[in-house]
């Protein structure tokens, strides 16, 4: 006789002496075998469903981005004909980078491609929005770039999703599912950027330009490079050449070119170059935290960064960096108060660095890097 203590647990849970118990037993066994042989396939289906949900969201974001771009161009640009077909064509724009097989002169070639791209975008906007002024045109270019980014992200995610579905490769699906949260975060940032660009509000990326604008406010300005203005500002007994992109339209200009020109104009007689830019914060760091360092704090494709590194190395000028920490979502959305307040902290840090690292009568370059949308000078 089997004792009560030695009775299997399953029998206690699902007694075998009735029909329901048997059915339940069979269901559990069926479940066991299904999961044993089709577990991975089920997991893959669940992952595909999850990706499909995000893809649907991306599609809606893309469509809304397109809608916003069309309505903004119609409102600001007052075009005579419907801009939608032209915008649709624009959203399919492709950039082809320079060949890197022979890296000699790649920066020059990359710069040329970037210049052509910018020119093409502005020409397109000019045709789409004939009534827009220079500031509005720069902002509209930014709107279209954000809509373009949303479209491109949507299309590449859709490509990998369809490829994963077609090949039923768990590795493609898994990789896609793993990067999806970061992709969605980036897309949300672009979606919010569209709103800020449409209204011409200052964005988080513009904190460097804001610092420079605070320093040069009320001073005489002159254009030193493409879309870059410069002011001579006395700070702590030193002469500071403060540069920033020309606002208030959405613009980054060519700060590297401006630094090169100033250094060459002054025959390298500059004691220090300070660059202020927004930097992506690490998780756990506070938004608006100000950090100091050395090196060229210029983001983007690297052309402007290269120019500053090259000229600073030529004249042996030290380069300092001041970074304002921001989340990826804050960089392209309307400037947060914490970031605005950080600009004042950065100004004080600049003064501190100048006092410590240079002597009275020296000359320094202060470059505020970033998109100057919504920031005058």
């Amino acid at each position, binding site marked *: 006789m089997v004792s009560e203590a030695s009775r299997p*647990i399953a029998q*206690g*849970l*699902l*007694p075998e002496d009735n029909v*329901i*118990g048997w059915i*339940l037993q069979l*269901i559990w066994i069926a479940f066991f075998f299904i999961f044993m042989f089709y577990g991975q396939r*089920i997991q893959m*289906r*669940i992952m595909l*469903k999850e990706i499909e*949900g995000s893809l*649907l*969201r991306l599609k*809606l*974001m893309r*469509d*809304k981005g397109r*809608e*916003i771009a069309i*309505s*903004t161009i119609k*409102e600001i640009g007052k075009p005579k004909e419907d801009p939608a077909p032209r915008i649709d064509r624009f959203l399919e724009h492709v950039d082809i980078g320079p060949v890197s097989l022979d890296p000699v002169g790649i920066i020059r070639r990359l710069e040329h491609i970037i210049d052509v791209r910018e020119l093409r975008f502005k020409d397109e906007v000019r045709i789409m929005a004939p009534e827009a002024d220079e500031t509005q045109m720069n902002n509209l270019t930014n709107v279209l770039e954000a809509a373009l980014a949303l479209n491109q992200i949507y299309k590449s995610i859709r490509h990998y999703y369809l490829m994963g579905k077609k090949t039923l490769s768990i590795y493609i699906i898994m990789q896609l599912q793993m990067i999806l949260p970061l992709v969605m975060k980036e*897309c*949300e*940032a*672009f*979606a*919010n950027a*569209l*709103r800020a660009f*449409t*209204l*011409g*509000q*200052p964005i988080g990326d513009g904190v460097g330009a*804001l610092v420079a*604008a605070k320093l040069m*406010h*009320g001073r005489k300005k002159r254009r030193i490079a493409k879309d870059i203005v410069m002011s001579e500002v006395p700070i702590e007994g030193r002469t500071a050449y403060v540069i920033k992109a020309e*606002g*208030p339209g959405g613009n980054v200009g060519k700060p590297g070119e401006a630094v090169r020109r100033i250094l060459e104009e002054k025959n390298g007689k500059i004691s220090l170059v300070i660059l202020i830019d927004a930097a992506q914060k690490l998780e*756990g760091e506070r938004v608006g935290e100000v950090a100091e360092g050395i090196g060229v704090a210029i983001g983007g494709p690297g052309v402007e960064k290269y120019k500053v590194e090259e000229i600073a190395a030529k004249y042996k000028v030290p380069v300092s960096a001041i970074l304002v920490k921001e989340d990826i979502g804050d960089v392209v*959305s*309307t*400037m*947060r*108060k*914490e*970031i*605005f307040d950080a600009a004042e902290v950065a100004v004080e840090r600049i003064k501190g660095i100048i006092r410590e690292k240079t002597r009275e009568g020296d000359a320094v370059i202060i470059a505020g890097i970033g998109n100057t949308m*919504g*920031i*005058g*000078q």
Partner: protein
Amino acid sequence: MIILSVEVVPPKRIPILLMILVFIMLVLSVAAVYQAIEAYRNGSLDLASIILSISAIVLSSYMIIQMRSKPIKLGFEMYDVSTTIQCDRCNYETTRKFERGDYIFKEVGSCPKCKGNLFISSIYREVKEKKRKSFFASSI
């Protein structure tokens, strides 16, 4: 009018496979409770099966509640953006809602106090961080 305020928010689609699985789990757990009650009526109390089946009911009910169709959040949120106007001579300062065409250091007329120049000194949005009280919250 720019289509910023009109948010197209279709309801979220519920995965059919997940829904079927959750319903099967709910049915099985209800059947298990029934079994346990029957066993109790016959004089044997099987505490383990009661606990397990009730937990399964709670879990599947929770999943059903979670699956309710929620609107899709697209971003494109409308923030409250403030514009601060300041006088360059006296300490006059006023804050209003952002208006199209505003930009930092834009001159916006003369001061009502001293007739100095008024300019926009700041444009920003304030974010209220949601602090969630969690049992597992760490001090890192």
